[in-house]
């Protein structure tokens, strides 16, 4: 059996029960509810002739590659300059991936905009954040790209905590805020890798300056929702580690930049309302820490301690 194989029936990611005829490497076992069919396009597709609704440089690739989103009849097409086009039908719960030789990069992209469009259709809230499970519940580590989310999540993994999400957090608001675990992978920068994978994880491949570290099956856990106990905003400090509560209204300014929504007034309004509900229901913390590897252990301890209290 291939790890996280979606052909075995109970594979899950972001709350979906994932069905796919081709192996996917980073799924969890059980806990998914709504079906999500992932298929590979039988033949190469063409970009839509319509104007895109959004276009942006893909994170972590030095601005070389771009992602472009088109709204089409029944759903969306998400095109990347390196992998190709994904056809997304959120209503039907179906994503068509492009045929391509780099299956790893294709799966990684699958778990970004394409799946976010599907879980947003379900009413869940996307946030640019890693998530880990402490004794108290899910802790979101929120920050823009290259602010150390993955490195800190990996430090939590080293301390025995479960990594629930690496870069995109799927939050459900009702009946209480919960986190729906995403793919069990960490893409870490080569300069923070100490030449051997941590216990409970293994190196899969290297791509574009990042190493793909897959969490082992026995450390993945299920895809069932985990109550969110804290949102931690990652900030840099020159000196000591400090963690302090911050008022929700003030934190909205930071969280607003970490969301994903379509560029329409209706989508903005929906995202804003969801975000303020989330911020009003979950304690938010500012974490100031030095961006040094030798500070990671102490940082993990401070976060765990604060969220426990």
């Amino acid at each position, binding site marked *: 059996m291939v790890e996280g194989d979606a052909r075995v029936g109970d594979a899950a990611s972001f709350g979906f029960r994932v069905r796919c005829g081709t192996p996917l490497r980073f799924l969890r076992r059980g806990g998914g509810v709504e079906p999500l069919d992932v298929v590979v396009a039988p033949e190469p597709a063409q970009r839509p002739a319509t104007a895109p609704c959004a276009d942006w440089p893909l994170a972590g690739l030095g601005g070389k590659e771009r992602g472009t989103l088109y709204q089409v009849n029944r759903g969306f097409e998400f095109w990347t300059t390196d992998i190709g086009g994904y056809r997304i039908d959120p209503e039907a719960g179906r994503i068509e991936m492009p045929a391509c030789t780099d299956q790893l990069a294709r799966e990684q992209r699958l778990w970004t905009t394409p799946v976010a469009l599907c879980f947003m259709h379900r009413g869940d809230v996307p946030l640019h954040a890693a998530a880990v499970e402490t004794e108290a519940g899910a802790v979101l580590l929120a920050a823009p790209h290259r602010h150390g989310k993955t490195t800190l999540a990996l430090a939590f993994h080293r301390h025995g905590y479960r990594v629930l999400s690496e870069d995109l957090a799927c939050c459900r608001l009702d009946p209480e805020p919960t986190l729906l675990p995403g793919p069990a992978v960490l893409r870490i920068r080569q300069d923070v890798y100490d030449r051997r994978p941590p216990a409970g994880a293994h190196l899969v491949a290297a791509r574009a300056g990042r190493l793909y570290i897959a969490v082992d099956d026995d450390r993945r856990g299920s895809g069932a929702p985990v109550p969110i106990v804290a949102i931690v905003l990652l900030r840099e400090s020159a000196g000591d580690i400090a963690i302090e509560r911050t008022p929700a209204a003030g934190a909205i300014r930071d969280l607003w930049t970490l969301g994903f929504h379509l560029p329409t007034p209706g989508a903005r309004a929906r995202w804003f*309302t969801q975000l303020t*509900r989330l911020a009003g229901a979950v304690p938010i913390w500012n974490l100031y820490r030095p961006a040094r590897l030798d500070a990671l252990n102490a940082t993990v301890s401070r976060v765990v301690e604060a969220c426990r209290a």
Partner: protein
Amino acid sequence: MPSADAQRAITIDSVVVAAKDQVSSYLAGEVVVLSLQTGRYYGLDRVGARIWDLLRTPARVADIRDAIVRQYEVEPDHCERDVLTLLQRLASQELIEITDGTDQIGSPARTE
């Protein structure tokens, strides 16, 4: 390009109301407001939140000032200056509309 309201001076006799294309939420006594057109975000403290509450329906600036003076026991001239400053800032963000009459009184703005 800023709207005409954004550039218009607000006086104590102006009638102001929350713009239609905004959405706001109350969070622990404060208010956060988002312009749906510009995507710009604005936060208001507790007194600002009370003023925002009064802006849900068209209101005279003088009436807003009087309500704040009654509630917070602040000196009227000082209060008037602060209210006008805040309203002008909200207008520059296109979060409120300004009229000189009372014809719109009674139509509530959108608040989540």
